[in-house]
């Protein structure tokens, strides 16, 4: 079997009641994985975009995409994996901020271009945005200080503008 790989799927769906439950039900009913899921309206209020991160081997991912396409309310399914795309996730992190650690935390916040959005007597709440690598690096650095809780939005993504061959070559 092929190896399991993380895939980021972007779905355009009809913005109607029950559509999300069809998608969630499809994953649970067929034993597929959802790592994260983000839903919101697009510019067209009748269409929502769902960004979904899932894991599976090639055959599973192929089935997931086909099964999603088969749902009557799903307009389009794009698999960003292997294509040029930008991905972002926002995380709120409540980290323990002992007086002697506060300067260190602020330094890291600065390095990661994140910011402190709430300050309390014991904790800072930090907001960070980035791709998967940046988020996990940041979490790893804060962990020793004592992360009390986090809230993640889940990944969202958009395809990069198509570059012409010339432009790519020119850059090379």
């Amino acid at each position, binding site marked *: 079997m092929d190896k399991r790989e993380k895939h980021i799927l972007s779905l355009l769906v009809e913005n109607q009641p029950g559509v999300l*439950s069809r998608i969630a039900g499809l994953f649970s009913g067929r034993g597929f994985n959802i790592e994260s899921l983000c839903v919101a309206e697009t510019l067209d209020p009748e269409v929502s975009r769902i960004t979904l991160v899932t894991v599976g081997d090639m055959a599973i991912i192929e089935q997931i995409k086909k099964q999603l396409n088969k749902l009557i309310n799903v307009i389009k399914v794009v698999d960003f994996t292997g294509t040029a795309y930008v991905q972002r996730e926002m995380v709120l992190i409540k980290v323990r901020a002992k007086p002697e650690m506060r300067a260190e935390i602020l330094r890291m916040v600065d390095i990661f271009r994140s910011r402190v959005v709430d300050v309390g007597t014991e904790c800072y709440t930090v907001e960070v945005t980035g791709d998967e690598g940046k988020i996990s690096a940041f979490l790893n650095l804060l962990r020793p200080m004592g992360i009390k809780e986090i809230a993640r939005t889940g990944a969202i993504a958009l395809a990069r503008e198509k570059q012409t061959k010339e432009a790519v070559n020119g850059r090379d």
Partner: protein
Amino acid sequence: MKMTGAQILLKCLEAEGVDTVFGYPGGAVIDIYDELLKTDIRHVLVRHEQGAVHAADGYARASGKVGVCLVTSGPGATNTITGIASAHMDSIPLVVLTGQIPTALIGNDAFQEVDIIGITRPCSKHSYLVTRIEDLARIIKEAFHIAKSGRPGPVVVDLPKDLMVMTARYEPVEKVDLRSYQPTYNPNVKQLNKVKDLIRQARKPLILAGGGVVASKAASALREFSEKIDAPVTTTLMGLGAFPASRTPLWLGMIGMHGTYRANMASGACDLLIAVGVRFDDRVTGKTEAFAPLAKIVHIDIDPTSIRKNIPVAVPVVGDCRITLERLNALLDGEDLSGLKERHREWFEQIEAWRSTRPLAYTQHRAIKPQYVVEKLYELTGGNAIIATEVGQNQMWAAQYYHLDQPNRFITSGGLGCMGFGLPAAIGAQIACPDELVVDIAGDASIQMNIQEMATAVQYRLPIKVIILNNRYMGMVRQWQELFYEKRYAFTGMEHAPDFIKLAEAYGAAGLRAETPDEVEAVLKKGLSLKESVIMEFIVEREEKVYPMVPAGAAITEMLLV
């Protein structure tokens, strides 16, 4: 002109050409029923909502049209689930109209409220909760379109009671516009050319046809295709009738767990397998790693999710089976195929050897053999009956011994395998085809799951013939217990069955019984000649088993024979 929701609904059904609705009234649909009285639509009153869906299913299979049923909210709706799930597995076009409590009460756990959209989500093709009367006509149009197009299936429409009495302008909807639902009917030409090349290279081709051939009305295209490329044909249970059983030597019989020896062996030895309208169910493939190990597999299906779901495929072709086969036939018309017969000569010799060494067989001695009953039925009806089946041994014997030359005549719950399907499905088939002989081949256990529908059959004077192969067991489970559980017959005995003859009479049907082999023919002749609903009971050999049998998890070529 302003109309009530109920009137609009019925106008929409009429516009879809609906002539029959199978249903059961209740509080939430009382307004629809009140209007139904004023239309020409025929309402068939079943005795249990499960029966309504199976009957609509049988109607759809026999007629090729969309089956429609109408039930009330709550328990009326939940009773339809098994029927919807069966139709979904077998890709049968249905529109299931369920009543719902008034919109203002939804979500409050009102009397007879149930979230039927939520419950049917994984077992229906699509579903709608109508929340605005302005949407009703469009939704009904879409429901019928979705049910019958692409890979067909059941669509549920939930109708809140307040919308049915509310009034609105009725504007007929002529066209469906669903940007998110566009089935692919036309196959990719490049893929067809690949198929053509594989056909030219093959020495041992085999065609595997399934329910998709029946659904897309591709039987004659399939026959032309198989003759053109000189390839033998096997079908799944759902595909029976898609290829004429009398067309020897091309017809191999059914493939699968209880398939014929030659069909299963051919799948193991072929070098090209052209699968049309199948989904490679585990009962067809056996152990998937060992399925068609030597073959390049071409898979033609309208549903992309069926392709590469269970079996790796060399050439996938997404498209309607009929259109695809017709295009292939046209493509092959320009080819010189004269060498194929000689190329396949050894292959057909091999198949003939399989056919003659291990034919389907049983020995009739003292007790009645169930196979003998089905075989006699086949002889006496000339193979011209519409056969509905229950599920289990009766279903497999019907599949093995009732040979069909035409599609839409074998009505069975293939994917879901739900007992209690046959009798209501036979009712639906008889209503769709009033001039045909409709027979339900049943077991004593299965028939009791929806026996109440005998009242429906008698009420509408439907001359359906129910054949009960009575072995006083849940025969198929008992067979597994005998073969794989050291004869521990855990709760599969059915000693306490009703007297089926008295039961038939109690319902107002005729009842006949045969207890010895020499009575079989007379009972069948008598029963078939009656112009009313009939139960014919045959007391059969209790421990007769269905053979060949591929044990669960074994390769399809590893059959138990006798």
